């Protein structure tokens, strides 16, 4: 094997790839534009949604009208701050069509409130749409605020009658919870550490975007040489077949990392445009880059083995896609499952697959356990090394030429 020939093959493949605009669009530009586009579009569309609030106050007292008005205004304010346009109208008999939220303040509403132990009722109905659900959440929040104000007022009245000085807040919340987080060593976690733990989940999921471009590139590169009938002259030339394989793995790794960088930037933009925060510490970023590189190499080698044994680019990509689906399953599950807390067969399974090893490395690092995080990172590279070795051992020009 010579580094010169490996670089020669990689340079040729990357030059060829750089002019394959459709693949570039699929691998790099689509996620880069798509994810921020999704955030922008959903933001724009959310602002275009109109919530229609309809209300009817059957209780003619000023108090009922005042409270009803406040609840409607506060609900409107909550929905507007979430990006909705809100329309409010009074509800006449039989005119509920088109209303996302219906509020009815029945007769006796204010008299029930005026009693120290009275319960007033508001009839609330939401439409069977996502805006209806949002409006219901908003109105519950508003009602909770009003209820709390009424309770405080009632406690003040009671304490005044009893001649006691009481703190209404203490009566309302006799037990208060002071919440914090701690890391795996039992030490209280800083706000940054909490944010890193959240970010690690997202980063573990984003590894899918790292794996996919490498698989697509390698499938096209190796099977494509056969399908486009360029492989035979190469195999007869003085180029060592292992240089050919290594050059293609190198090219797909570079393409994979470029794709991964574009995807990652897309994810960051998605978070920024969605108004969410993604906290990245230098350590987490370095770890993410390390496992990404290992996974790209692993995926390229896996795709090389598959591509050599399939007859066409399409079948190679289909089979390689199965491998990427396995990766997707693990990374999607990582969003919801604490891999570090699993035991037994599940843990052994996760520890033996590089895709989940990478997720484990990120999760362990996020909870402050750097030793297992590094161990799993090394495991990714160890498995990758073994697969590269297998790929080079089973690489058979005759099979590549015959395509089966």
């Amino acid at each position, binding site marked *: 094997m010579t580094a*010169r*020939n490996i670089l*020669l093959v990689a340079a*040729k493949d990357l*030059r*060829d790839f750089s*002019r*394959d605009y459709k693949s570039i669009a699929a691998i790099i530009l689509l996620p880069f534009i798509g994810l921020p586009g999704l955030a922008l579009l959903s933001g724009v569309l959310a602002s275009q949604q109109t919530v229609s609030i309809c209300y009817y106050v059957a209780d003619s007292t000023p108090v009922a009208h005042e409270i009803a008005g406040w609840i409607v205004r506060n609900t409107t304010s909550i929905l507007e701050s979430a990006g909705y346009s809100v329309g409010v109208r009074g509800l006449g008999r039989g005119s509920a069509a088109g209303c996302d939220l219906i509020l009815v303040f029945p007769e006796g509403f204010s008299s029930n409130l005026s009693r120290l132990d009275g319960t007033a009722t508001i009839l609330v109905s939401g439409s069977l749409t996502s805006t209806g659900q949002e409006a219901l959440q908003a109105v519950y929040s508003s009602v909770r605020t009003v209820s709390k104000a009424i309770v405080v007022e009632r406690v003040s009245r009671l304490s005044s009658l009893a001649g006691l000085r009481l703190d209404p807040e203490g009566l309302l919340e006799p037990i208060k919870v002071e919440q914090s987080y701690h890391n795996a060593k039992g030490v209280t976690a800083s706000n940054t550490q909490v944010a890193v733990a959240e970010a690690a989940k997202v980063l573990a999921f984003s590894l899918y975007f790292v794996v996919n471009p490498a698989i697509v590139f390698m499938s096209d590169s190796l099977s494509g040489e056969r399908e*486009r*009938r*360029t492989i*035979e*002259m190469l*195999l*007869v*030339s*003085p*180029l060592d077949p292992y240089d050919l394989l290594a050059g293609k793995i190198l090219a797909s790794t570079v393409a994979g990392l470029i794709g991964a960088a574009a995807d990652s930037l897309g994810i960051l933009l998605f978070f920024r445009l969605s108004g969410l925060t993604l906290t990245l510490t230098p350590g987490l970023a370095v770890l993410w880059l390390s496992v990404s590189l290992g996974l790209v190499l692993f995926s390229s080698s896996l795709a090389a083995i598959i591509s050599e044994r399939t007859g066409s680019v399409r079948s190679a990509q289909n089979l390689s896609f199965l491998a990427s689906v396995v990766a997707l399953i693990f990374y999607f599950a990582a969003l919801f499952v604490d891999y570090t807390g699993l035991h037994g067969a599940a843990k052994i399974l996760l520890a033996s697959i590089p895709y989940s090893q990478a997720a484990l490395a990120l999760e362990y690092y996020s909870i402050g356990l750097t030793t297992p995080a590094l161990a799993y990172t090394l495991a990714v590279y160890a498995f990758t090394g073994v697969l590269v070795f297998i790929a080079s051992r089973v690489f058979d*020009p*005759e099979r590549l*030429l*015959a395509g089966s």
Partner: protein
Amino acid sequence: MVSAVRDAIAGEATVRVENVYKRFGSVEALRGVSYTARPGEILYILGPNGSGKTTLVRVTLGLYSPDRGVVEVLGARPGSGGWERVRSQVGYVPENADVYERLTGAEIIGFYARIYGGRNWRRLAERAARISGLSGKELARRAGEYSKGMRRRLLLAIALMHEPRIVFLDEPFSGVDVISAHRIRMILSRLRSGGSSVIATSHNVFEAERHADRILFIYKGVKLFEGTVEEAHASYNASTLEEAFVKAVEGAGIDG
């Protein structure tokens, strides 16, 4: 087989293939085929589609491993220590070979020139450009825009840029225009004059009749005849090579 052994002993043969068998699943592609090629001659391997011509070439070039039999090219066997040297002295244009469509002709030549020439790649690239007959403007265009004849000339130039001692051409005239075919014929004649062995496969007996020094008939993986055109005429009492081939097939009584 006797003649193959004799030539090898005499040290004349550049290619020596002896009693080679190759099977793909249930299909026996080659059944005990032997042949030799010598310096300064054009050998045509003739046979209908599916007769085993391409398989025979691929076995000779070490692309396929024979199930049985011996292959020696320039004294080395495929996969042996000397095979690396052989690969730098062999040129090959497969039948359906194509170009990297997104690269320019010059870039493709440059890629192969670096493989064959290392540091001296520029000299090889210049030679390839000359052999191809493509202008600088044409070489600067993406090869995907080339006609079939231009592609064939580019591939032939790549196969010959390192002045190989043996050249294998699989169906060299298949689908090329008259001018490109003429140019390829001229190149083959020059190679013969320069002492190279040229081994071409074809199903076109008329082409072989005019240009071959020796011919090899192959049918359903079995060699039927090896010798000069005149020897073929005499052996089958035929006035044309086409007639000789038909009689060879009819007389062989080969089962599929």
